[in-house]
């Protein structure tokens, strides 16, 4: 049995009195795509931020390639270098152009010479159809373009695990597809990904495993076919029924 890429064991997290993650366990194998679904506030975002060590967990363990990254004394910056995260609100650096946004981390954190970092960034921009935007500033880009740049920025450090935190939720509907296509492209090249999303159709297409989160617990998980067609838990059935009623699936 090989070591999974990412494993969560009994993870708990509370903000004040509010428990956001309750005994969460999850195994993500290499090259797997895991989609987290569930209503807002169910803990999807927090889960991803915990994996990226942006939010410290209260209890439990998170293993990356079999190594405990939540143990004390772990260099958090090294851990973060090995994975990329993309947020709902893009969070590009507004005072830097597209190229500088992408090359900041390779240059300053990984010590890549500027010329090499820029060459690689331009390659990525071309691959994702953004070569025209190299010297633009973020406020001159559409939401979809900004989010694609944010994905490229996360990819520029060559992570082998990507986390997506509702990356299409802040986008105009007609811009959603271009971002989802980028993620599909990453699946094709075998990227391991954990994706929190409200796009059920996308989750069904792209996921190897779907987790339904409810009030901080992973209530149900399995292959998309099972979760979307024959959900076992009443809460899952209720959630999916509402999505179907809203015409979103």
């Amino acid at each position, binding site marked *: 049995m090989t070591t999974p890429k990412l494993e969560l064991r009994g993870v708990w997290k509370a903000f004040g009195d509010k428990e956001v993650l309750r005994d969460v366990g999850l195994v993500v194998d290499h090259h797997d795509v895991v989609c987290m679904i569930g209503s807002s506030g169910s803990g999807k975002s927090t889960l991803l*931020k915990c994996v*990226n060590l*942006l939010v410290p967990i209260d209890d439990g363990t998170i293993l990356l390639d079999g190594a405990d990254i939540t143990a004390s004394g772990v260099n958090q*910056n*090294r851990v*973060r*270098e090995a994975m*990329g*995260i993309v*947020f709902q*609100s893009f*969070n*590009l*650096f*507004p*005072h830097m152009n597209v190229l500088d946004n992408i090359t*900041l*981390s390779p240059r*300053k*954190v*990984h010590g890549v010479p500027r010329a090499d970092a820029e060459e690689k960034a331009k390659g990525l921009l071309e691959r994702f159809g953004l070569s025209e935007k190299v010297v633009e500033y973020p*406020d001159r880009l559409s939401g979809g373009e900004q989010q694609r740049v*944010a994905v490229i*920025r*996360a990819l520029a*450090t060559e992570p082998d695990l990507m986390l997506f935190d509702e990356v299409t939720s802040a986008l105009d509907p007609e811009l959603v597809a271009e971002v989802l296509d980028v993620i599909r492209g990453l699946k094709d090249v075998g990227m391991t990904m954990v994706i929190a999303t409200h796009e059920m159709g996308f989750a069904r297409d792209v996921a190897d495993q779907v987790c339904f989160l409810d009030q901080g617990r992973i209530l149900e998980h399995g292959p998309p076919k099972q979760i979307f067609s024959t959900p076992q838990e009443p809460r899952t059935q209720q959630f999916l029924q509402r999505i179907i009623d809203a015409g979103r699936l």
Partner: protein
Amino acid sequence: MNDRSSLDEFDGGPGLLGPPHAPRGREEGTRAALIAFASTVIFIVVALWAILTSNAWPAVQKQFFNWDHFVAVFPEVLGGFWLDIKMFLFAEVVILAFSLMIAMIRSLRGPAFFPLRALAIIFIDLIRGIPVILLILLLGFGVPALQLPGVPKSALFWGLTALIISYSAYTAEVYRAGIESVHESQRMSARSLGLTQGQALRYVIVPQAIRNVIPALLNGFVSLQKDVALVLILGIREAVREADIYAASTFNYTGYIAAALLFLLVSVPVARFTDWYTDRDRRKKQSVST
């Protein structure tokens, strides 16, 4: 015949009829400017008349506005003012760098940085709690009197040091406000890319923070540019001190007016520039958000 230009032609062209709104708006603008101008002139005339016709005016004029004394004292005051300018420029550069360092230390997170953070807070609280002039006196007279080996004894050095320390405490708070005005998500995304706290501050947070507080920093410039004169209490011969010396021997205060004019010559343009910059910045932000 339904477009504007052809209608205008039909009615005798835009010269006669013209677009319906623009001229009226322009006329109103001109009228407002005229009213503003007239009321300003009236105000100045009345104020001057009140001053110039008062019984005390001849005496005041002799003491403060004497042309011969002005000519006599001006070279000395100008020489002193040059020192003011040099002190201001030097101090400002040091303050901008030093206070940024303090603000960054104050913004570090995590228990490991607690001692540094505490030091920064204590420094800011203590220094802001002491009047500038007292700090100048304490350092300017106190430290040289200690006769410590290797420590400079120059009053100018310690006067400037006092100004720098005092202004740095205030400026650090300006920077900190700027740092806190940058949204938390920026810090988070910088950290998620593997940047250390220091790198996130340096490359992501601080550049945005500084842009947000430039008007406040410029405001501090104006304030410091005048406050450098406070070192005169250490006997440093800057502009006001020169005017002082002249007044002591001649009993004429025209030197103060000369000094005031020189300070205004520098501070008014900086104040105007600050307003202009703030305005431009606001308009830029509005144009981005729409």
